[in-house]
């Protein structure tokens, strides 16, 4: 009868042998679907909504200009962030020139400047940036927006 006595009581433990596989799967999923964060935002930002949006293709051809209020309390006015620094409007041309340096000649007309501006920014700041971009002939721009109804922009 000893054969039957061996039977254990209670639930068997769940095998964790496949846990690494599961986690690796998740890891690969995230590695494939995401991109490295390039800059640390120094400004507060909520992008406006729009419906007529286009996806920006070829991220390597896009340079970003961030506009918004500073995260540090007590600093008023719209701030412009290029790379990791708060900058002036005049710095934009050097930023774009530096960006052009890293691309071969034939890609330069394809370079796009994406303006990521906060919903409460005043248009004056944006106009200054556009004027600066026109001066150096960087004419392709993109107003970064989220997809959504425009009525959400109004409050």
């Amino acid at each position, binding site marked *: 009868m000893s054969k039957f006595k061996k039977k254990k009581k209670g639930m068997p433990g769940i095998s964790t042998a496949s846990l690494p596989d599961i986690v690796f799967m998740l890891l690969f999923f995230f590695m494939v679907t995401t991109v490295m964060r390039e800059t640390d935002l120094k400004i507060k930002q909520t992008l*406006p909504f729009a419906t007529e949006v286009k996806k*920006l293709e070829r991220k390597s051809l896009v340079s970003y200009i961030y506009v918004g209020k500073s995260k540090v309390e007590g600093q008023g006015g719209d701030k412009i962030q290029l790379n990791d620094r708060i900058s002036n409007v005049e710095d934009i041309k050097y930023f774009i020139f530096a960006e052009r340096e890293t691309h071969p000649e034939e890609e330069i007309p394809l370079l796009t400047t994406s303006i990521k501006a*906060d919903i409460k920014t005043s248009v004056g700041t944006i106009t200054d940036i*556009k004027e600066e971009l026109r001066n150096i002939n960087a004419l*392709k*721009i993109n*107003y970064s927006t989220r997809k959504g109804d425009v009525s959400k922009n109004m409050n």
Partner: protein
Amino acid sequence: MARRELPEINAGSMADIAFLLLIFFLVTTTMDVDTGISRKLPEKQPEDIDAPKLKEKNVFVVTVNRNNNIMIEGDKFIQIDQLRDEAIKFIDNGGGKGNPIGEAEAAECDWCEGAKDPASSDHPNKAIISLESDRGTSYGTYISVQNELVGAYTDLRNRLSKKMYNITYIELVKQSNNDMQNESLKEKIKIIKEKYPQIISEAEPFK
């Protein structure tokens, strides 16, 4: 010599290592897709250039003030949700003859479905939308207005494309992007774009 068995490597901590990597990637990467309204800035003009003469009826003026109120044609306040219809009405009016396209003679717009009001725009290729904004306008409103104006053109192009090729313009562009070699799709897009060219001009903002 006795063959010794190699001790098996303990894989128990593999999960921990994988988790560590996973968390690292979760923190350092972003998932957002960049979307936005694409525009092309006008080239810098020499100071002394004469502005081309335009008939007032061919220009649709949209003004946004610092309180984010929207006014069209200098006399009518409207809400943002009315702007698209007003713009469509203006572009699609077709009250007269347009600019000649290529070799062809200047002709009337035979694809327009507008009111053909002689006091409004002549032809979609003559109709210009001029956007004036104040420096104090909020960016949200500015984007909304731009979006509605681009939307008006998209609506018109969709309608025309549906009539000519039984497929919307958006769908046409999407197919063309998936199939870059297809010349007939490109040709269709070109025709639609020629019939409703997107002419949005931005004036310098007033202080």
